[in-house]
């Protein structure tokens, strides 16, 4: 099992969700996050003066999938969330030790399907 964690531009959520659905992801979690990478925030204006917003709003999309699906999930996500401009985000893949479906008590891959 692996967790695929993608930090994406908020307006790309629908594209990402549909792409994940097409390659067989059965569930996902989304949270609103703020952060910056190499793009280092941007400047905004308020009452005639400029200021730097360091942490830009992003979405974090998390999917836990069996090992054999990781490749197609990550490539689908990368393709769907890409605009080609700076700030598109990143995808992280980490190992997951176990999963439990709370309703039935199923463990491991069985809890994911």
């Amino acid at each position, binding site marked *: 099992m692996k967790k695929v964690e993608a930090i994406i531009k908020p307006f790309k959520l629908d594209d990402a969700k549909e792409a994940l659905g097409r390659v067989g992801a059965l569930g996902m979690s989304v949270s609103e996050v703020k952060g910056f990478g190499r793009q280092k925030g941007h400047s*905004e*204006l*308020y*009452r*005639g*003066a*400029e*200021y730097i917003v360091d942490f830009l709003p992003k979405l974090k999309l998390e999917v836990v999938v069996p090992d054999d699906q990781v490749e197609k999930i990550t490539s689908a996500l990368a393709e769907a969330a890409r605009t080609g401009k700076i700030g598109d985000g990143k995808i992280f893949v980490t190992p997951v030790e176990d999963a439990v479906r709370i309703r039935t008590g199923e463990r491991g891959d069985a809890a994911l399907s």
Partner: protein
Amino acid sequence: MLLAALLVPTSAMADEVTAGQFTANNVWMMLCAGLVFIMHLGFATLESGMTRAKNTTNILFKNTFIISIGILTYALVGFNLMYPGEFNGFLGFAGFGIATDEAGLTPAYADGGYTYWTDFLFQAMFAATAATIVSGAVAERIKLGSFMVFATLFVALVYPWVGSWQWGGGWLSEAGFHDFAGSTLVHSVGGWGALVGAWMLGPRIGKYVNGRLSPIPGSNMPLAAVGVFLLWLGWFGFNGGSVLSADPAGTSFVLVTTCLAAAAGAVAAMSSSWFIAGKPDLSMALNGILAGLVGITAGADVVGILDSVVIGGVAGVLVVGSVILFDKIKIDDPVGAISVHLTCGVWGTLAVGLFAPDKSFVTQLMGVAAYGATTVVCAFALFAAIKATLGLRVGEEEEIEGLDYGEHGMHAYDLGLGGGGGFSAVPSGARPAPAVATQLATSEQ
């Protein structure tokens, strides 16, 4: 009463006013009192929107306090301090409390314009406005208790005392000073108090980083917009009611000059902020509406239609320049109250001398100076005395965490942290503060 004398031949009117006219006049004046009351909701929402979410409860608490204590103190001392009847023109007091005989409820009281009770209520709604202007400028850092003491004394004593010089028939009205609905008496008095308060408190933490201006954006532009539109609506009563009767010619004319100035102020502020900053700034456009309204308030009854557009437009440019200037000299005013009420209040009062044919610019300037000097001295004395005893500013840690939690132990917005299971019961006798801390801790999972 004095203003009515300028608009209509009152002695003739008193004789001729019918019961129907008296009723219509009085209903209009009570409606205007209600409209001025709505301005307090406008101030509350505008100030909430232009400040950070961590201080919203505190802002709203102050607004709730001001209108309430304002009405009470105006009944206790304010009304009779501002309208002492026959007096020496400088300071008079007709006694504590409000009461009237039968004559106060007949057309004999105010040339058929309204009853004694309506008079009190309309003026009471005005009084609280002056103190509420200060609230926005000192927001996000003043101690709640200290502000409450200042606001109470300011609205109970300072505003009505200096108001008596003009509207009470005192020395400035004798001198021919003209301030129709209070560009100076209400707005600049509040504005001077705001300036002294913001100056004595110093800027909010984070407003200047290494000496450089670093804006602190407001939390909610929709609330700010709602507030400004409510204030504009309220101004129909603020200026419309200042005709002091439902006189068809007077009220309709005043509402037109008022709205033209507001509109011109908005467009002028939009254009100038767009030109100066390169982007159109909504908060400046909203301030522009208020700037036009404050600007026209002194002369809404005596300037021409085109004049009202010019007065509002100049106010709209002035407010943008003033906001930028005060930011530069490190007077931190989160909502722009000083620029709107003081800068444009002074402009509007002087504009009467420029645009109204029979008004003297020198007399207008004298009035502006008299109110400025007196209010600054009073506000400084009050703030200095409070600083020496109660202290003015909250601690650094509290300011950073927010006054909602620090002063009130509560937050304005749930932010999804509370609701049902997120809360823990507090053992009786425990302080409320830990409950909030527990709630935050358990919700961060």
